[in-house]
Structures are given as C-alpha cells and as structure tokens.
C-alpha cells in the first residue's frame, strides 16, 4: 500500500465543502444533551468550559492540518504506515477504522434512543436503525462527493434551528450566570472533558484529506466550520444556563430538546417533535461520514472495495445497536465513548504530529536535503 493516495480529479471535493463536512460531523447527537454533563462538573461556569473546549478543538484541528500538510496527499492510514512501520501502522489503522465505525454506531443508537423516548415509545430499535443505515449505505455508495453534497444540504437546512432559542430566552434568569469563574481550574477541565463527545468529528479530516482539491485552502475552511460549531455550542450552553436552574439542568437528559419544548406557533403546538424529525437530517451526515471513513480505512489497508467493506461493517453496527436496550446502557456507552474520543481525537493528533515531525527530521538528516516532502 502506498503512503500517499492520489485521487482522480473527478472524485475530489473542494476545500470549502471540507469545512461543511467537519461542521456537519461535529454537530450530531451530542448537542441534544451535552449541557448536563458539562454543568455537573463546572456548575454555572459551564459555558467557560465550552469556550475552552472550543479553543482546544481549534488547536487540535490546526495540528491535524499541519500533520497532513507534511504529506502531499496522505490520510491517517498512510501516515501511520510511514511513522510506525508496516505492522504497527496497519494495526493502528485497523484500530482507527474501528473507532470510526463505533462513532457511527454510538450516534445511531443515541438518536434512536431519543426518538424512542420522545416520539414513539414502542418503536422497535431494529426498524429505525435499519432505515437510517440503509439511507446511509445508499448515499455512501455514491462516494464521498455525494456524502459531502448531502452534508452541505443538511447543514444549510438545519442551521436555522438555532433561531428557536429566542423562545426560551423569554424565560431567562441572568443571575444564574454569576458569579463568573467560581469553578476552579480542575472543574473547568472536567467540564471540557464532558464536551468531548459533542465536539469530536473533526478527525474525519484524517480520512478525507486525499480527496481535497485545493489543499492549501483547507485549514481556513475547516477552522471556519469548527468556529461555527463552537459558537452554536456556546450559545446553546448559555441559553441553557439561564433557562434552567442548576438542580434542574443536572436532571435533564436532553436539555436542548427541553429548550425546544418552549417553542410554539399558532399552528404548531409541539415544536420538539418536529425538531427531532428534522434532527435525522443532522444525524445522517454524521453516520455517513464515519462509515465512509471507516470503509476507506479497510480499502487503504487491505484493498477491499467499498461495497465489500460495507457488507462487513454495516451489519456489525446494526447488531451492536440492537444489543443495547436500556437508557443506562446507552448512557454508559456514551460515557465510555466520550473517553475513547478524547484520546483518539484530541490527544493522539498531538502525538502523531510530533512523531511525523521527528520522522521527517530523521529522514532529512539521512538524505541531507532540505526537501521535507516524502517521495513515493
């Protein structure tokens, strides 16, 4: 397998779409209920944790783009082969692939759980999971361009949902934000960890990088995507803090949906049901991009084609999602996955960056040239 992967120009996507992909993959099911997890740790200063976590995300994305820029057109699977050698590199590649499809699984199951709790209490998991997965598979068959196009559509259709926060703001109690900075650094840090499940999703850059047309414009567009995500998260968090009292917030599982419960129109009493249905549009790109990234890994490592990999991956996701039944199991799953995500999406990129730089320096010293790029 080659370290670099030169994609045909007909299959590439432009850099600004990558920004949409990152933003669309970041916003998923996490935003429906991250407030409680952060507020449990950081109290009424939770919004500071959200801002700090956002800054950390910007930094991590910067490191990821810098790492990728060291290679002309490589993805994580190639980079790991280059850095860790053939066997360890392939092993880590498989791990990352599995991480990607577990992400898809967690998002899928959590969304189904939301639907079962709020809309259809007796809807069996297998039906909704099957429908969502089939939709995802159908889109992925069209390749990354279709997935990116769909993500663009989904983001532009759903971004206006932020505006409905106007309704809960009518009930705002601004004293709840004060005194600012009462939480100590440890609590704020724990709150940041609580954000990890909601903000992961940018690591798909590692998989889509070879497909980007004008790579020099990528950092800017991705940073913009992350910035939009962070602004939305911060805004939602502040509104939640002034809308709920602390005791109420730590008891509310899906605070964002409770915020949407306050929205009503003369012709529409219960907006949250509409919002949950629309949320399928938000969740689908997540699942698609993650499955695609995972399948891509198997293709790069073992040369399997997309269809073969799908036949392997999708049933696994499907059956794992059926195994989880109760609220507690899903909660645990989310907690565990938040931890995994923190290591793979936040810490690992820094490590990889250092290793890549070190490797390149070694190579340069060997070759004695100032050329930093890797020739195939």
């Amino acid at each position, binding site marked *: 397998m080659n370290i670099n992967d030169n994609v045909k120009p007909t299959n590439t996507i432009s850099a600004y779409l990558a920004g949409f992909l990152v933003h669309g993959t970041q916003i998923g099911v996490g935003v429906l209920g991250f407030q409680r997890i952060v507020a449990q740790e950081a*109290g*009424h200063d939770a919004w500071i944790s959200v801002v700090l976590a956002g800054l950390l995300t910007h930094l991590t994305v910067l490191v990821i783009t810098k790492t990728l820029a060291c290679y002309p057109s490589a993805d994580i699977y190639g980079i790991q082969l280059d850095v860790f050698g053939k066997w360890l590199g392939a092993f880590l590649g498989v791990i990352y692939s599995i991480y990607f499809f577990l992400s898809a699984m967690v998002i899928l199951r959590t969304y189904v759980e939301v639907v079962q*709790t*709020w*809309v*259809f209490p*007796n*809807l069996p998991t297998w*039906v909704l999971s*099957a*429908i969502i997965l*089939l*939709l995802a*598979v*159908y889109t992925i*068959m069209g390749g990354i361009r279709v997935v990116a196009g769909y993500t663009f559509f989904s983001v532009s259709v759903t971004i206006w949902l932020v505006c409905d926060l106007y309704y809960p703001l009518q*009930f705002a*109690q601004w*004293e*709840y*934000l*004060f*005194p600012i900075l*009462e*939480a100590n650094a440890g609590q704020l840090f724990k709150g940041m960890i609580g954000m990890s499940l909601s903000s992961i999703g940018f690591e798909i850059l590692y998989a889509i990088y070879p497909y980007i047309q004008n790579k020099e414009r990528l950092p800017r567009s991705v940073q913009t995507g992350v910035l939009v995500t962070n602004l939305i998260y911060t805004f939602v968090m502040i509104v939640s803090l002034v*809308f*709920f*009292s*602390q*005791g*109420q917030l730590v*008891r509310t599982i899906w605070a964002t949906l*409770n915020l949407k*419960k*306050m929205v*009503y129109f003369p012709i529409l*009493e*219960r907006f*949250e049901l509409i919002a949950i249905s629309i949320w399928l549009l938000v969740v689908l790109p997540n699942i698609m991009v993650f499955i695609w990234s995972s399948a891509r890994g198997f293709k790069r490592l073992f040369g399997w*084609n997309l*269809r073969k990999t799908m036949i392997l991956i999708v049933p696994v996701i499907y059956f794992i999602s059926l195994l989880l039944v109760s609220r507690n199991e899903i909660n645990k799953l989310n907690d565990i996955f938040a931890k995994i995500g923190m290591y793979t999406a936040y810490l690992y990129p820094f490590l990889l960056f250092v290793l890549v730089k070190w490797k390149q320096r070694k190579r340069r010293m060997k070759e004695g040239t100032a050329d930093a790029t890797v020739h195939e």
Partner: protein
Amino acid sequence: MRQSTNSSFGTGKRFLSMWCAVTLLITGCSDRQIFDETGLVTVVGYDLQKDGNTRGTIVMPSINPEAKEKIQLISAVAKTSKGIRDQANLQSDKRVLGGQLRVALYNEALAKQGLGSIVDTLYRDPSISSRLYLCVYEGYTYDLLTYPYKELGNIGIYMYRMIEQNVRGEKIPSTTMHEFFRAYYDHGIDPQLPYIVRKGNEIQIKGVALFQGDRYVGWISPKEAFLIKMIHGKFRIGSYDTAVPSEVFGKHVEHLKNKAKDVQLVFDTISSKSRVKLTKESPAHFDVKIKLNARILELTVPLKVDEPDILSMMERALEKEMEGKLQRIVKRMQEMDVDPAGFGVIYRANRRGMGKMTTSEWRKMFKEATFRFKVDATIIRNGVMD
C-alpha cells in the same frame, strides 16, 4: 473501479432503493393515533382524599355529535397519577392522551403535602408540554370541574386562556410547569402558582399561592404578587392602584368642596426595572433600586395634572407608598419563611463560594436579611387629557 463493477453496483442500488421503499411503507403502520379515537385531555385536577389516595378528574372535549354535553368528564381514584390515567382509560371509549393538557389543578390539601412528586410525573412525560399551567384550587377540584357552567365551554381551554391572558397582562407571575420546577430545584427561590377559587358560575384567580419548596404555605393578593415581581423582575405593561392622603397635594386640593380624605390614583402601562445589590454579606443586606415609568389613568380628585409640581407630588407619593408596601411584603415573606422573589439567587450570584448553598443555609440567610427599597417613579404620560 467504478466502471469495472458497474453492473453489480446498479443491481445493488436498485435492491437498496427497493429495500428503502419497502421499509418506509411498512413503518407507516407503527403507532397511529386517529383523532376520533383519542380523548385529548385539556385539564386535570388532583385531590387528596381523606384516605390518603389521590382522586384525579380529567376533562376532555366530546366530539360525539349525538352527545348533549360538550365535554366529557372522568374521575378516578388511585395512588399515582399514571394509575389515575389507567383507571380513566377503563372508563372511556377513547384513548386518554395528555398531549393537549394545558392546566393542572391541585387542591389545597394536596399542595400542603407537597407537589414535587406528582408534578414530576407530568414533567417526566415527553408528551406533555412544559408550558402547562399549574394552579392551586381552594376546595376540591372535582367540584370545580364537574360544576355545570353555563357559558364557559370547554373548561380546560377556558382556564388556560384565563391564566394566559393574566400572565400576559402581567397581573400574575408566569407559572408554567417549567418555572415551577426551575424554582423547586433551585436553592434560592420558591415556586409560586395562581390560586383559584369558584364563586357560583364564575372561576376567578384570587391570588398567588406561595410555596416553601414544594409545599403550599399560604396565598397573597395579586397586588402583593405584583410587588414581589417588582423586586426581582421586569414589567412592561403592569398596572397598580393606590390611595394617598389628600394632604400630600397641599394647596392644590384646599379649594375643593367635597374633599375626600384619600385620593385614589390608578397607574397603568407600568414599565419597571429593578436592580438588587447585596451590600452586606452577613447578615445579608439587600439594596433594591426600582425604576419605574407609569401613566396616570385615573384619579378621584379633579387635579390639574398639567402643573409639573402636581406630577412630582404624585410621583413622591407613589414612591413613598410603594417603599412602605415593599417593606411590609418582605416582612411577610420572612414570617412565612418563603422567598418567591428569589433573594437567594441574588445572594448566590453576588457572593463567591456560595454555589453549593443548601436550602437551610438560604432560609437562615433570608430570615436574618434586611432590606432597603428605593423607588424612583416617573409619570411619563397622563392619558389624553390634562
């Protein structure tokens, strides 16, 4: 790669689209709720009975054209509110659903016992709106709901509109289920709900019921509730009437023949803003500055309000009267040991390290607190007449 597997891809796609269509068609049969077969509850009343059980009474609109009555009433006794719903289902030809529930009433005895757990059931249920209004009723809600009103129509919708228009008109504080729980889970503010009575054919909001935690302790008049909201809140269109001794106006009223002892003044479109400062931490001392603009609507003595000094006299009189009233209402709150104005929230917001304030700490703080009120009133308009 695409060209080489083109044929298999085509069949795959066709198969997939067939699959999607079939699953979508099948799932249309999941959980149908046909309007004619559901009973949409609009109001529910809970009563604590002598034997400790709870009686629930629900009202649904009747859409049966042959029925005489426009509403259908079902009452059942059970230990829990969902138990009541199950019992109610056994008495109804339609499926009882709570999605349209707009008002929940609790009788005084039940409210005295504590509403936390029984409201929690409603809050937990995703099908019930958070904008549901909770109220306390003085007698048995069963009697209130089963009384044959002549012209109220669907009593649930009627009560909902009644409460809503009063909340919008800022006559009573907003009391949705969300706000009840927000206050209930907060160690720094107590919930308050409308207090409803029935007089013959009329349903009336008599005042505002005050709670200590989730236990009802007593009620206050709407005017007192207005003042409480004024301490810690905003008004846009409030109204307030007061009586001031006519001596205030000195020489302006001397020439009047039939001089009453008091002058009645009515103000409306009051917009107010308050700023509460914690000036001393222990014992707590709150400095409340209220700035309000009002329009004079009615006065019982023919005064020429175009004279500036009369207006300023009125303003001074209103300020003084309000400051006295505010002191009194705060005293009363301290006696009742309830804090619906949320001084605890302000205290916590202005003093570092109180984030984990417990209920008992807050009650103690509130008991010992002292207050100073400073009202700054401006009469901005005087109607269309001078």
